[in-house]
């Protein structure tokens, strides 16, 4: 069964069709990439899936459940995590605390329990801390745990964001241009990391500009142009797809 199933998804802003009639699905355990030129509707698509903006038409099913009417925090609680294109790290918190926020949906302590610091809250807190440290190790920056997250390097901040997203124990991870702003070495590191996360059994949907990264790690690619789906295939065949080449390299006849 498909983990994520998108059918006839549309969204318009005023007269502009940002996303129109897009359908695709995501099978458990794969990495799927969404590519397309600037303004193709990639980010809008992401925001629609996460519940950040309401959709105009269509359906989104996650683990068989309709999520198009849910708010973004409810969708996150179902097991969908994401990272942001322009890193949204929580300032004024350490790297570890940032990851600990990610454990939110897996813990329960409410206001009263937290204020009274009940024994089970205490235990839960210890568990969250242990798990978060593990995740920092997974993304290979355990030494940054007690540093203020905002003071870390760009690449490290991306890693913190990744660990934070994983902390919720998601079944689906959405990565919004994870390689943006990284140099080629950092990008190679990132590719390794994403593959490692996939091996943990997390399904990944990513939006990316960096073609080498996309071709490297994705199992399938969806190409968008002007809000429409242009193609959907495995990387090798996308590279041969005439329509895709036209979009990226310009129309031969016009040139």
């Amino acid at each position, binding site marked *: 069964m498909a983990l994520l199933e998108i059918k006839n998804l549309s969204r318009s802003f005023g007269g502009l069709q940002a996303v129109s009639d897009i359908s695709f699905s995501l099978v458990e355990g794969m990495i799927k990439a969404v590519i397309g030129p600037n303004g193709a509707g990639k980010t809008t698509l992401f925001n629609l899936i996460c519940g950040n903006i309401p959709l105009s038409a269509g359906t989104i099913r996650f683990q068989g459940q309709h999520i198009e009417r849910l708010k*973004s925090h409810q969708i996150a609680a179902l097991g969908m995590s994401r990272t*942001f294109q322009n890193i949204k790290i929580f300032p004024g918190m350490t790297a570890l605390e940032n990851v600990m926020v990610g454990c939110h949906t897996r813990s329960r302590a409410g206001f009263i329990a*937290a*204020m009274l610091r009940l024994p089970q809250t205490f235990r839960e807190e210890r568990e969250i801390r242990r798990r978060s440290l593990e995740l920092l190790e997974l993304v290979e920056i355990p030494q940054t745990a007690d540093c203020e997250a905002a003071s870390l390097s760009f690449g490290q901040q991306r890693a913190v964001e990744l660990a934070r997203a994983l902390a*919720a124990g998601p079944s689906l991870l959405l990565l919004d241009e994870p390689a943006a702003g990284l140099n080629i070495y950092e990008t190679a590191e990132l590719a390794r990391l994403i593959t490692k996360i996939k091996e943990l059994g997390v399904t990944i949907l990513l939006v990316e500009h960096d073609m080498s990264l996309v071709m490297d790690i994705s199992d399938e690619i969806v190409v968008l142009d002007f809000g429409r789906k242009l193609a959907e295939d495995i990387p090798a065949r996308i590279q041969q797809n005439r329509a895709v080449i036209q979009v990226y390299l310009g129309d031969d006849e016009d040139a």
Partner: protein
Amino acid sequence: MGISKRNIPVLLLIALVVIVQLITAGTDTSFYLTQLTMTAYYSLVIIGLCLLMGYAGQLSLGHAGFFAIGGYVSAALTTHNLIGLRHNQLIELLNKTGLLSMGQDIYGEKILTVIPWAACLAAILVTIIIAFAIGKPVLKLKGHYLAMATLGFGIIIFRFAMATEYFGEADGISGVPPFHLLPGLTVSGDFGARISNYYIAWGLVLLGMILSLNLVNSRVGRALRAIHGSEEAAAAMGINASRFKLYTFVISAVFAALAGVMLTHYNGGIGPSEASVMKSVRYVAIIAIGGMSSLWGALCMGVILNFMSLRGMFGSYDGAVFGAILVAMMLFAPDGILRLPLLKKLWRKNGPARN
């Protein structure tokens, strides 16, 4: 658990409270205790507001309103004579359950009033209900809209207190009876009870502080700071921002209302000036000076400024002093006085090195 690093300031506060009391006893200056007790109750409001402003990131220019709701409800219930209504079924029921007490006023007239414990609980309950009702729509607003809406709420409470006969109009309510907290512990302005009241008040501050510190250093506190940092990212972590903001609003309102109840019993009355906009602005000013998201900073500044103000050290310039502090702080040190560049440098030099 042993003495962890986090407990040290709490222990210091306890020591300081005791030492100050001993000094006043030793130097025969126990009249200071009166202002110190009042300061403690105002500090309780500030701790609550600091949770809301510093951690949940929501401005409230109407917190004096919650203080007044607590004070007024408690004062009204414990002073209004229900004797004329004693045959009413509800009143009879309340009387039977021991929630009312029969007494005599100075003219020997029988008076039937609600006991302070019940009045206190009623005041807190009313506050919770109002805070939920007002917080739900208000916290959807941001920036100027939030500021004006909370300011508007504060003014409504002020005007309501001023215009309603039941709440004594411009005179407020006086003759509020002592609050027998526990056997041997009574909240009242009685000279004999000065020392015990000092400890009651500071005990409450301590309790409020510990509860708040626990909250801040928990899953909830992290969620609040996350909301403050980026609401979108917080939502992506599964945090229900509006619910967390609302609950924090209610908790901070309860802190204010409890302070209102206690101070009203301590002073034996309450007037509409407690609900005035100036009071709300003053609470905000103190938190701004303490550095928004610093409970200890807010508490320190709250104690210092409230005590100076209550001792009349600013004379007739009281309002002007707070206005000037607000402007100067926001111009030169928007992160609070402890984070002034100069102080920061000193801190770096002498204090523990940061990672």
